[in-house]
């Protein structure tokens, strides 16, 4: 039986660099934890599937970020080829990757999420930008955050504190996608909760608290070592820590995710957690949150990757 595990990283998204770093880190950890596996790294290109057909891998770990990696499309292809892979199925990814859809599904499950509006550029063009922006402000208030509905790493995201900043924030978001999410900006403690599936069910890792330098956890704050302060576990009262873990577990199960996910939340001054977004391919770089949470829990990244790979192979056979 093949023992070949392919870590897929790179791709064509703006998060290519992050993905490559995640891929290298997971591949190295897996090589150490599971020397019996033959671990290789591959980019996504037109030669990939021919290679898979000629020599099917035992398992694939997709660590692609951005569209093809997280919107479920690549996973659909892997499913079609009956290739086991680590992570959520395509249809669940589609729900989680689209922020407004994930928000509305989780709101339906009783999870708090900041009020928001998602609009394509065409709406602004047809109705005039200013009247629409005014309507959005009157609906969700200031400050608000604008971000592309799809995509991660805070690319194209900016906080709007005055109406004058709103148009430039929209231009920034539309540079990354056709639809922009405008969401009330909840002031509070930024927390991420990573979840992984164990044989006994999903487990929430210790919450990670993020204290970015200028108050905003943007791309630079995410991937430049030393710029952001992290607290693991987050400095939360125990009941609030339990509440955020419950939200993450409910999001993971509620959207039908599997193997691993990361839920980003804000805890406001009253201790209420507000769901912001879900990641089906959480970053695994040296500054990423998932490895930090694993480390706090005493779980090795390589060991987790090995368990998830073996589980993926087993569930496919």
């Amino acid at each position: 039986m093949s023992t070949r595990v392919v870590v897929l990283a790179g791709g064509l998204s703006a998060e290519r660099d992050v993905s490559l770093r995640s891929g290298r880190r997971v591949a190295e950890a897996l090589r150490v934890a599971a020397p019996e596996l033959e671990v290789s790294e591959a980019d996504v290109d037109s030669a990939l599937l021919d290679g898979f057909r000629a020599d099917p891998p035992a398992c694939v770990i997709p660590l692609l970020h951005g569209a093809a990696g997280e919107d479920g499309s690549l996973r659909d292809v892997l499913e079609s080829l009956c290739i086991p892979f680590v992570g959520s199925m395509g249809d669940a990814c589609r729900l989680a990757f689209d922020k407004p859809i994930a928000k509305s599904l989780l709101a339906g499950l009783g999870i708090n999420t900041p009020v928001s509006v998602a609009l394509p550029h065409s709406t602004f063009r047809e109705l005039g930008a200013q009247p629409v922006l005014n309507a959005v402000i009157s609906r969700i208030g200031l400050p608000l955050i604008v971000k592309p509905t799809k995509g991660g790493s805070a690319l194209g995201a900016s906080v709007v504190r005055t109406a004058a900043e709103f148009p430039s924030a929209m231009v920034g978001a539309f540079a990354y996608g056709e639809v922009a999410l405008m969401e009330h900006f909840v002031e509070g403690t930024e927390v991420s909760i990573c979840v992984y599936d164990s044989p006994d069910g999903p487990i929430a890792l210790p919450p990670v608290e993020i204290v970015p330098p200028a108050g905003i956890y943007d791309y630079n704050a995410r991937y430049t070592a030393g710029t952001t302060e992290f607290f693991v576990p987050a400095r939360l009262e125990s009941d609030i820590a339990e509440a955020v873990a419950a939200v993450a577990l409910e999001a993971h199960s509620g959207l039908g995710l599997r193997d691993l996910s990361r839920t980003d939340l804000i805890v406001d001054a009253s201790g209420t957690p507000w769901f912001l977004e879900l990641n089906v391919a959480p970053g695994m770089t040296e500054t990423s949150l998932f490895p930090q949470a694993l480390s706090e829990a005493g779980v090795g990244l390589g060991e987790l990757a090995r368990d998830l790979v073996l589980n993926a192979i087993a569930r496919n056979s």
Partner: protein
Amino acid sequence: MTASEIRALFAVASRPEVVSLAGGMPFVQALSMDVMADTVAKLIRERGATALQYGSGQGDVTLREQILEVMEEVKVTAHPDDIIVTTGSQMALDLVTRVFCDPGDVVLVEAPSYVGALGVFRAYECGVVHVAMDDEGLSPAALEEAIRDVRASGRRIKMIYTIPSFHNPAGVTQGPQRRADILRIAQREGILLLEDDPYGLLGFDGEPPRAIRADDADGVIYLGSFSKTIASGLRVGWAVAPHGVREKLVLAAESAVLCPSNYAQLTVSEYLATQPWRDQISTFRDLYRERRDALLDSMTSLFPSDITWTVPAGGFYSWITLPEGLDAKAMLPRAVAALVAYVPGTGFYVDGQGRQNLRLSYCYPDPDRIREGVRRLAGVIESELEIAQTFGTGAVLLDSEGSVNPAPNIL
């Protein structure tokens, strides 16, 4: 958008699906690899013990003599002892700045200027002051005004840094009169002129422009490079400096790297001694001229009429000015999603200018790819104009952070 965000976008540009008009990699594939292999093999067989050994801090003396021959093309005459061989001319730039500049000293540079030089000046904590250019490069009137203003502010000017031929990124060239005017100002004001000339032999029409250094051996330091005329991977460049300066540069070089790579130097030397290098440069010129034409022709037919660009008479780059209200940096994610890359203009300034500009390079992709890249970029610009129209022309992104350029190995 932050610097690291832009670097992330450049990471995508290395994928083959992306037409990259961003990087400045010379098209070394135009060299005969058989010739290069034979050259290296012969070198190692016949002089391996020398090539693989430490060498002199100033550089191999035979190569320095050969560099004199190369510089005859731009009418520079010097003595081999006036030359110091460096690891690319970038190292020469670093050494000159290290030797001459104290923190706070001012370097006058063109607006825009080579991003690698801006990085060096910043690293040595120099004050960088941009001086306006026109169709013939650095403006003498603006230069005089900048000198007056800087001195009036009580600061000390150490150098004027200029790329007179086929400017990176602006694509313009100083004519003979312009060069004379700039030299006269530098001499009158007693300011050292640092002439960076990596593209001088890559002109598309007529003789290579006469270097400024050809008319002043004492007040000008000349930087040359084999990166574009032979191969950038060899990392061999040089500086020509007056005697007193050269001694200091050699000492600084020795403390930095002991000596430049003997292997790379002797490879260049062997190549110059045994190959028709002028013919090879002529091949490069023809290749880059064809690519320049592909870029200019496709921009003329595909870009909206209110976009302007410079017409380079040599070198690698054209400098584009977008319509009012467009921000080249904010547009980059859209371009990368459309599988075309460029360098936003802000990277070539230290003071936030250049939002409306971008640099397109035509050195690496073949003409068909260049045309496809311009077609994609035209679509991107059209979409961005729609967004600007919707949200108003003042709706540009507010944050900015430093100069950003693709890494040297990014296409």
